């Protein structure tokens, strides 16, 4: 069978780290005392995320999410909540901006160590129809931070 060289490989999408966060999501649940939150859904596919934050003196003290969706949307939200803890609101906003650039194929953003484990999602940019899945949690973050 001939190989189409332009075809992205599934292995770059479904990495161990992503599957691990999908099967065992971190920070999943209700956050008591949350003072910022957002609930977003993707009407074309039905994925949804409810993100809750506890922001104290300009820093994200805690973050949790609830949601329904594919491995990409759920693992992205799971890794994001891990990364957010202890970050200032400005740092969180900068991370959201950097992650969004990585999803749109920006190689510099994908090399940026500040994104931590989330760099495992860099391969999603090769699957354009899945980019919105990866961004769902981050769009919820941007939305939630507006109320801070």
């Amino acid at each position, binding site marked *: *069978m*001939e*190989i*189409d060289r332009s*075809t*992205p*490989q*599934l292995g770059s*999408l*479904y990495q161990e780290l992503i*599957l691990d966060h999908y*099967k065992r999501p971190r920070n999943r649940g209700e956050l008591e005392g949350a003072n910022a939150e957002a609930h977003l859904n993707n009407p*074309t*596919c*039905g*994925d*949804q995320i409810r993100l809750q934050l506890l922001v104290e003196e300009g820093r994200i003290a805690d973050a949790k999410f609830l949601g*329904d*969706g*594919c*491995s*990409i949307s759920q693992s992205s939200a799971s890794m994001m909540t891990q990364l957010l803890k202890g970050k200032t609101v400005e740092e969180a906003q900068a991370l959201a901006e950097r992650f969004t650039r990585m999803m749109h194929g920006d190689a510099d953003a994908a090399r940026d160590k500040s994104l931590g484990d989330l760099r495992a999602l860099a391969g999603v940019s090769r*699957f354009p*129809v*899945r980019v919105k*899945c990866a961004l769902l949690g981050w769009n919820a973050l941007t939305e939630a931070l507006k109320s801070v």
Partner: protein
Amino acid sequence: MKGGELTVASPEILDIAAVRAQFPALDQRVHGHPLVFLDSAASAQRPRAVLDAVEDFYVRDNANVHRGLYELSRRATERYEAARATLARFIGAADPAEVIWTRGTTESINLVAMTWAWSNLRPGDEIVLTLLEHHSNLVPWQLVAERTGAKLRYVDIDDEGRLRLDQLDALLSERTRLVAVGHVSNAIGTVNPVREIIERAHAVGAKVLIDGAQAAPHAKIDVQALGCDFYALSGHKMGGPMGIGVLWARRELLEAMPPYQGGGDMIDVVELERSTWAALPHKFEAGTPNVAGAIGLAAAAEWIESIGHDRVAAHEQALIRYGMERLGAVEGLRLFGPKDPAERTAVFSFALDGVHPHDVATILDAEGIAVRAGHHCTQPLMRRLGVPATTRASCWVYNTTEELDRLAEGLETARRIFG
């Protein structure tokens, strides 16, 4: 398909290779694999006969219809109205003037909502729908309810995704003005007993609209034998072009309905303060119509007739039986819809344990297999089934059992990746 309205004669075997050869889009590789197209319920591929008919119109006869006094306009008008007559025959209409061209099923249903329903429904009236409905046979009635004060009532489904007809009788009353129901469920493939529903609805004096988008590609439609009041279908789901569809309604209903949109072609005399309307069917067709679309849809109808509804149905029954067995053998797969092949179309809508439908679709796409994943524009049905979404593989006349093998193998790959 079951039911008196859908006749299956003793069919000959379909020459599947010859059928496939007529669909140019099927002959391609995707991500290095031969394309397996299993999303015909969303939009089917088109046979060469349809593509040629559309091109031939633009190349030879292209002109506006019903206006020009010159040869090209005469030919365009003739072909446009001949296409209407073809569709009238295709759905068993008594009169081509009862066939209204629309953009598709969605517009057909909205036309009935915004003309017949707006002018006839009052507070306290009821519209009966079902949990199987596509958003296009649900949201227009919500808008009608909001505007007129009418109430919506819903028929539930049983565990196999079949309508609970026992509930229908309890819902129907002298308050019921309309029953709007799909002929075939787009999401899980249930073939509804529409003739029986129509009889019961008529017994209380209600009108019945049938959303035939998912039936027209698969079975012989006969609106007179069904006895319905409105029937809607889309061209692109039966091999025709996108952006063309049909609303059929009985003449006396169309005569009494106010116009849908105002503009050219739909008028008789226009004065400064008022106008009078053109005769049927033009009263409902304002503006320059989709002439090439109508001609292409007629070519699709003729193509299906040339294959024969009975052979299409027999081929699809074979695919249903094979697919249910093959997919049933995939571990962790839960197939929705009726278990009896006679009560369904070749639409396989399923959940795969531990793998979200989007991930299933991405993994299948990498192997050149096109399926749909999501809520299929049936969010209330998904909620009723208790799933956020399903993966849906839908077949038409050109699909093969080998393609269903590749689907099953792709699902095994998905299970391995997420294992």
